[in-house]
């Protein structure tokens, strides 16, 4: 650093001669203070680590991954909270009715009044891509790391690839064609285009094949992190979209063969418990003692319902002997009125020790997916056997000898009654099987055929014109 007196000091010969000596002395005295860049060198804040340091250590790399799971659980598409797909797409489809304040965003999902500027839709998009960024940064960090063991690195990478595929898949079920983001480089990601659906499923499969290689067969502790079977379920869901039936059968065979790991729970009341044996992947609540966000979203004790409640249209679909209505729905009676809510999860308060986790993937879906694939392939007997497993547990009689179409109808009906209000699976079934218009048209005054997709957030189209056209109808 330069001494300031060089350019600022006046060179007047002096009225006060002694002063220059004093001045110089003073500047010399300051010199140690001002002569180094060290002064403006600051330590990192205690709550931050450099990106490189995070991935030099197994514990901090794990923390980066755990944060992604925590965000998936609390926010965005897969949360059990009221902004998650379980509630909103339940309202969008025919499972739930909305009784709350009609100006709330949930009401717009219920009556199909969603506009391109909708804040919830924008937040689905933004939170998902934010997590995709975190996942890509995590994948890059792990791949460049020298401090993580090979085995840990494989698990990390497998989980990262799985999460990235999961988020992209969920987005595509809502928005159709979407950008597929593989890097954390913002320059590239600012100019992305949307990927055609066929290309997208190829990309998803590439990621998932790799994830399957990298992940373990055994479930993680308490099944709170995905293993190879979670990858298989996601693969099967994607194959349902594309009609790749053989692959569904082979993936589900591999999963269902592990009968020592995943044990069919015969008792409906135990399917959603913390240690349920049919669980493949579940979210652990934030703190020990907390239970699921789903319970908080759906349960009410006095009528009329403050927010969402099961629609009468859906409730009528339960046959009187279906045990699931008694076990998995709750009813509030008040005078002549009666309302029901999903009651798969029972605890909307803390319980000291958590009794329920939020289950993302479970055995019943695996059987139903295999049943559908087998039926499509013409193996009606195999399909029936898988379907009857679901029916039996619900207290329904076994079906036999149906033709293919009726069998598919029966499978879809069981999917509806078994998987209701789970992450928008019902809406997804209506959409992928092309039955959305015929089912929702008559019961939803706001229904338009273009509602099959949500609008791409308007602000995104403006800021990145490469995203192309808005989805039709918006």
């Amino acid at each position, binding site marked *: 650093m330069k001494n300031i007196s060089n350019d600022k000091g006046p060179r007047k010969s002096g009225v006060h001669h002694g002063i220059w000596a004093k001045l110089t002395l003073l500047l010399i005295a300051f010199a140690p203070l001002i002569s180094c860049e060290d002064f403006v060198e600051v330590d990192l804040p205690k709550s*931050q*680590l*450099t990106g490189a340091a995070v991935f030099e250590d197994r514990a901090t790399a794990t923390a980066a991954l755990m944060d992604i799971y925590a*965000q998936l659980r*609390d926010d965005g598409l897969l949360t059990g909270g009221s902004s998650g797909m379980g509630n909103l797409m339940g309202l969008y489809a025919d499972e739930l009715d909305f009784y709350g304040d009609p100006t709330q965003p949930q009401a717009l999902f219920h009556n199909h009044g969603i506009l391109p500027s909708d804040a919830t839709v924008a937040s689905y998009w933004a939170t998902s891509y934010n997590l995709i*960024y975190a996942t890509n940064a995590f994948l890059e960090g792990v791949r460049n790391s020298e401090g993580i063991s090979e085995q840990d690195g494989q698990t990390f990478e497998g989980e990262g690839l799985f999460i990235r595929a999961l988020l992209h898949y969920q987005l595509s079920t809502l928005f159709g064609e979407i950008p597929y983001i593989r890097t954390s480089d913002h320059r590239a990601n600012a100019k992305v285009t949307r990927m055609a659906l066929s290309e997208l499923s190829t990309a998803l499969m590439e990621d998932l094949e790799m994830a399957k290689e990298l992940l373990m067969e055994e479930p993680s502790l308490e099944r709170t992190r995905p293993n190879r079977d979670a990858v298989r379920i996601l693969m099967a869901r994607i194959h349902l979209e594309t009609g790749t039936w053989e692959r569904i059968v082979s993936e589900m065979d591999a999963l269902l063969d592990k009968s020592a790991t995943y044990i069919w729970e015969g008792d409906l009341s135990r399917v959603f418990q913390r240690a349920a044996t049919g669980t493949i992947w579940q979210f652990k609540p934030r703190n020990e003692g907390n239970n699921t966000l789903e319970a908080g979203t759906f349960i009410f004790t006095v009528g009329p319902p*403050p927010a969402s409640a099961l629609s009468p249209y859906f409730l009528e679909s339960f046959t009187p002997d279906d045990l699931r209505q008694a076990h998995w729905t709750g009813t509030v009676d008040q005078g002549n009125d009666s309302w029901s809510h999903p009651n798969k999860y029972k605890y909307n308060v803390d319980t000291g020790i958590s009794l329920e986790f939020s289950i993302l993937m479970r055995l019943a879906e695996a059987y139903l997916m295999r049943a559908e694939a087998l039926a499509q392939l013409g193996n009606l007997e195999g399909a029936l056997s898988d379907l009857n497993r679901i029916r039996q547990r619900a207290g329904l009689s076994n079906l036999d000898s149906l033709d293919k179409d009726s069998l598919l109808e029966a499978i879809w009906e069981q999917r509806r009654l078994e998987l209701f209000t789970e992450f928008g699976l019902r809406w997804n079934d209506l959409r992928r099987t092309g039955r959305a218009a015929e089912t929702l048209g008559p019961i939803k005054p*706001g229904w338009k055929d273009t509602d099959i997709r949500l609008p791409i957030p308007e602000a995104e189209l403006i800021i990145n014109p490469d995203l192309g056209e808005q989805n039709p109808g918006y």
Partner: protein
Amino acid sequence: MKNNHVTACITGLLLLLSWANSLAHIHAAPKTVPIPITLQSLTVTGKVTDDMGRPIYGAHILIQGTQRGAFSGPTGSYTLEVTPSDILECSYLGHVTQTITVAGRTTIDFTLETETTLLEGVELNAGYYSVSQKERTGNIVKVNAKEIDKQPVSNPLATIQGRMSGVDISQNSGIPGGGYIIRIRGQNSINAGNDPLYIVDGVPFGSSSLGSAIVSGSIIPLGNPNPLSVLAPEEIQSIEVLKDADATAIYGSRGANGVVLITTKKGQVGKTRLSVDLTSGLGHIAKFPKLMDTPTYLEMRREAFTNDGFSDYPFYAYDINGTWDPDKYTDWQEELLGETAYRHSARLSFSGGNATTRFRMGAGHQQETTVFVGDSKYKKTDLQASVNHRSEDGKLGLDLSMGYGYEDNKLPGFDLSGQARNLPPNAPTLYDAEGALNWENGTWTNPLSLLESDYLSDRYSLLANLVLSYRPTPALEFKTNIGYNDMRLEESRTSPHTMFNPAFGLDSRSSSIFFNNGGVRSWIVEPQIGWEMTYGNLALKVLAGATFQGEVTTRLTQLGVGYSSNALLYDLSAASYHSVLSDTRTEYRYQALFGRINLSFGDIYHLNITGRRDGSSRFGPGRRFADFWALGGAWIFTRNRSIGEALPFLSFGKLRGSYGTTGNDQIGDYQYLDTYSVSGNNYNGITGLRPSRLFNPDFGWEENRKSELALELGFLRDRIYLTGSWYDNRSTNQLTGIPLPATTGFTSIQSNLAAKVANTGWEFELKTVNLDKENIRWTTRANLSIPNNELLEFPGLETSTLADTYVIGQPLSIKKLYHSQGVDPQTGYHNFLDYDDNGIIDVNDRQWIADTTPAFHGGLGNTLTLGPWEMDLFFQFRKQDGFGMQYGGIQPGSMVNQPIEVGDRWQEIGSNAPQQRYSAGFDPNASIAFDRYRNSSGTFTDTSFFRLRTVSVSYDIPSGSTMDCQVYLQGHNLWTWTALDNGTPEGISGFIPQPRMLTLGLRLGL
């Protein structure tokens, strides 16, 4: 044509000649009068005092026509060798120069009167130095205690609102402790970093609020309470705003957005005084927007369902399906925001001093309630103390000032403005028969449930400043400024289960509370050397110094959930689980070298050179240092004898200009680093780590080049004083958050923007004394600013993410909107201009440019003193366009009340109406058309206003000689004219506007 050229040439020549002549005159002067040192020489001694009898140290006594002279010493005394016929001229900054002929005497005392021109506050604080109003080369505006004391407001920023040209202040909420937006000469940067630098008594005062949006965002806009509110306006002596390069370049990297200097009151030489000030006031919201009454509202709702093809109403249409009483009417705005706010304050000050020591202590307490229903309260207590000491010989000086402030704010957790505006007029009563909150069987969200949530905030601020100085000779001074600022904010917001509809069946196990504790501690040390020299007509002032500054900001945000009883809510240890959302500590280091050289020649020409070399920890290695400089000049042409004589109507005339550079490092700490932060989130028992930001290791200093030209004119012995200035600020390489598509994972990245932005404008200030008689004095002051903002260049704008936000040649403050074409008489939907003529209205048709930059703004004040009476009226005005009530509104026909003008809607084919057909939300065409309309030119309108901002009347009660007693009445926002048909022209939607306030006060002095 030819003639014109000749005239221009002659005029130019004449000007040149007069310039040369004046120079010659000055240079010639010493030569033509030789100094004969005769045998008759004698020694004159004497004393220089001011009009109060205080000795003046450093006054210059000059023998006229020579270069010989002396300075007065610390006791005001001087000694000088003269001849009996010499004429002595005694001058001191801010005082009228006195001339006395020696006439053989050996003792000559000077009594210098304070310069009592209109230039109130003759001395201007320029931060590191002070400068007289007349000789300043830069643009500095000032509001003094006299003007501040007339306003019944609690934030210092409110006291300068409308009173300074080029300073645009708006308050974004009317609640006590709410935030302000201040822009000095326009918006330089797009997202963050437009705040000026605040310096209180020489110590930088952090403008960051320490607030957490998660805690306070629902009651204070942007969760950004203004930290300056902790200072009591009554304790402020003056507020100066530095605007141009000459004034701000010495603040280097922190001066780009201007500098606000706040000086607290100090003790005065003279008898010890005690002063007591008591006030009591009340306020309420001046005017609510007009909304529909019940019959109009219900008609809208029924028509909406009919339009949507419904014959009977769905179960959730409680307002019209018979669930709610169709005959009920509540004016929700009056009900929820119509309370009277009370304000009481008491203040005591004690001050005095003698020639060597002055002191002052002031303490005050203030209480204020809000217009919200419920028991909210704001309390502020402050204590100020200062001691100023000069040693007997005047060589050592010590100035200590300390201030402690404490604010205690209890507000509802949510601003109810949104509810007041939106609730259907026939919504149920607030309380049931038993006096409990009425949930009407869960058919509505009782707005008072939001009042179950409390927002509490405590803010403490300690500010201490010590200036030690040593002046070995009158011309040389060593000085060190040491400052410390400690500010803490503790805030919390509760969400007890009683906020929620009882139908959820919740109990206190669902109650929760957010806590946020923030603190910022900063210190500053600034050693400086000042040196002055006079050589004949040439005066030189040199200042050199260094700054070392450190700042540590800490923040701890916590959440507690699940209590056995709501009574334990504030006890985190009683929460069944407790989580730390964020725990951060950031550090900022800053160092600089600065200097100033001021040259003045014959008090006619002034040249001011300032410079600063800055280093900041906010930039990556290799990019931390930058240099800033400015050059300012002033020519007081009326002091050139020939020009002065040629323009006899001018009592004062000055031309000044400046050019220089400043920077901006308001970008937050550590932005250049790739880091992971603790997220506070938990999974599998592990606390998460999250990428902190999109990092950019390459960003560097932005640069602002400011130029200014100004003319200051005084007429009739300065009874009319006019200043006109023109400025042109250009910023390049702007540091800003560049917006990104969500696909990048983030919404913006900190980066240097490859754009060039110009802020240009005109500013005028006028001060006049219209009447000045023995018992009556009438003065007027006015200011006017005409700002202009323009994006000059932006290479690659088309392909950047800002392509749709900015347009070359337009201001940064534009918004692109749909161009409303009225309602289609056939369909009843809003129509828009199809810019690209492709038959489809989509985002590409958002091409109508709305500009919210004000065309001009300013203020007009009049003060009339009539014996013991004084009356002051201050108007604020602003010519601007802005958004009306339907901007971002909710579709007419939904279960939301509407402004009355919405009643003028389309009803049948062929009808012409400004509003489209009602829809309850089941007609997608209506929804989409309205969604565009609320972002269209149709909601953009003239929001100009002219407001009587302050009225103050005071009366001095005649009393005994030892006591003064004054009563006063002050009004704030008493009357507003606005071009807007319905609604208020200022503020943010969803938050209450500034209330109308009336205050009665009593001031006693002993």
